[in-house]
């Protein structure tokens, strides 16, 4: 158990590049929404949002440098959320 906080941080430059990436992805998702791709639109939007989310998670929230406990518990939470939504569709999609 550490007595001082382990110092690990991302440089300002790195964080700024991540911010620009996020803005770029925002631009892409807005642009794609003007194309009519039917059912695909919402999935593309979700994929892009997930990519943006991953950048926030890995860099701003430092997950890139965290240990197994946090990584697995986070994935487990997201997995449970996935079950919540998808298993409801066993009902809703087959009525």
């Amino acid at each position, binding site marked *: 158990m550490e007595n001082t906080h382990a110092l690990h941080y991302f440089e300002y430059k790195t964080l700024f590049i991540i911010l620009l990436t996020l803005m770029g992805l925002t631009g892409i998702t807005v642009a794609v929404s003007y194309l009519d791709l039917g059912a695909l639109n919402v999935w593309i939007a979700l994929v892009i949002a997930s990519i943006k989310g991953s950048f926030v998670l890995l860099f701003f929230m430092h997950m890139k440098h965290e240990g197994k*406990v946090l990584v697995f518990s986070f994935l487990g*939470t997201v997995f449970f959320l996935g*079950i919540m939504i998808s*298993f*409801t569709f*066993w*009902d*809703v999609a*087959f009525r």
Partner: protein
Amino acid sequence: MEVVTSFFETPYPSRYKGIWSWLLTKDHKRIGIMYLFSILFWFLLAVLLGGLLRLELMFPGKTILNAEMYNSVFTLHGVIMIFLFIIPAIPAVFGNFFLPIQIGTDDVFFPKLNLLSWYLYMAGGVIAIASLFSDGFPDTGWTFYVPFSISTHTNVSTAVFAAFVLGMASMLTGLNFITTIHRMRDKQMGWMQIPLFTWTLYATSWVQLLATPVVSITLLLVIIERYVSVGLFDPSRGGDPILYQHLFWMYSHPAVYIMILPGMGVISEIIPVFSRKSIFGYKAIVASSMAIAIAGSLVWAHHMYTSGMSDTAIFVFSLLTFVVAIPSAIKVFSWVSTLYKGSIQMAPPLFFALCFIYLFSVGGLTGLVLGAAGTDIHVHDTHFVVAHFHFTMFGGTGFAFFAALHYWWPKMFGRMYDFKKAYISAILVTGGFMFHYVPMFILGLQGMPRRYFDYLPQYATGNFFAGFGAAFMIIGIFLMMINLVLSLRKPMDASSDPWGGTTLEWQTASPPPLHNFMTEPVVLDYPYDFTGVVEKYSSDDKGE
């Protein structure tokens, strides 16, 4: 014997005295004891409410309650039992008291958060009481199904807000336990040296953490709908009432695993000690605890077969429900195999544990009748369901709670209770239990609906019998409590290890000192290694 100053005499923080040394304590043991008394209060109140219900049902027609009151009483009985007793009981009382001790540390990771959890629990109780007045306690059943929970004029918003607050207490306790287990174990204690009770608390804590927020948002939505009428569950405005049920059971099914897992942990502690033999299949029990927690979150819609959901969903959830039964069966098998060829020492904890194994098994098997969609159609919303969940929640968790009380009482309070009265109370409760609930299985199969304040004449005999059983059960429960409380009049002379246990709580004084251990505890390589215990007891003439 060295006299150790117990935590009762050592407030923490030390500057507080009297009642404040309890209300502002950071000591997990004091918090556990505060929970014990508040939880027993709610339990006994809800038992009396249950007695009231059964008295009403003993005779056809109105006996003592009218229909509206009956609805409110069974709602209140359910809400108190589920949110104020069964879900918190074992984790909040015994988890708080013993988790740090079992892993060889001096407190939980967030002691102040722990105290906050207790205050949230108390606040939830007060808010629930508040909803008894003016427009009356809800008459919706503890499940608060829409649309009735949105349209009824009773105090639904206040009552579900109470449940919301109680949910917060539950989540924070789970958060605290997970962090404690990860960060504060004794250096010698790896994951495979953790006692089984702690393992079940770990599994339970994850379910508390992840499942409770679902009911939090669901209850918030009920309140929002009552005030603002968004229409999210209203078909006339585009909503789907079945979605309420999905969201509600997404929590409430995992909640039954929150209820039972710690109880199973208690049984896994008791059986080896009173068999003087290591538990059969430690790793299998660990794996099955985690498997129950995970698989239990995949089956919620087995409460909804008759709701109007799709046939595909009925099929899928029924199939998955049968999968969940497997890890529970593994545990029963392990307990029985532990007893086999063990050196059995009969004592009240073991007696309650054996009753648990039988009652929970009946409960579990009848759960299969309900889990199979085909048979469920006939017994859904009948007294069969009521009997099933009382066998599992009461015969299961309730009896595990009694067993835990009798197992850990000498450790917590430094006194031993009278065995004979404990046995008598156990027999009264168990016998009364059987007379009370078995008729309900039959009544359900015969078609008597649940939550009905009156019934057709052919159901009168069964209901009469059930009322009789209830009387014995309630007498037994009160006798049990009185016996335990009477022990407090004796001097604190219990030994540190009256039973012959191997987990760390038996290496310290009864009651423990403030920081749990006077000397560094010895962690065994295998937590249920009884060689030392067997040696000690064979060299003495008698035990203790």
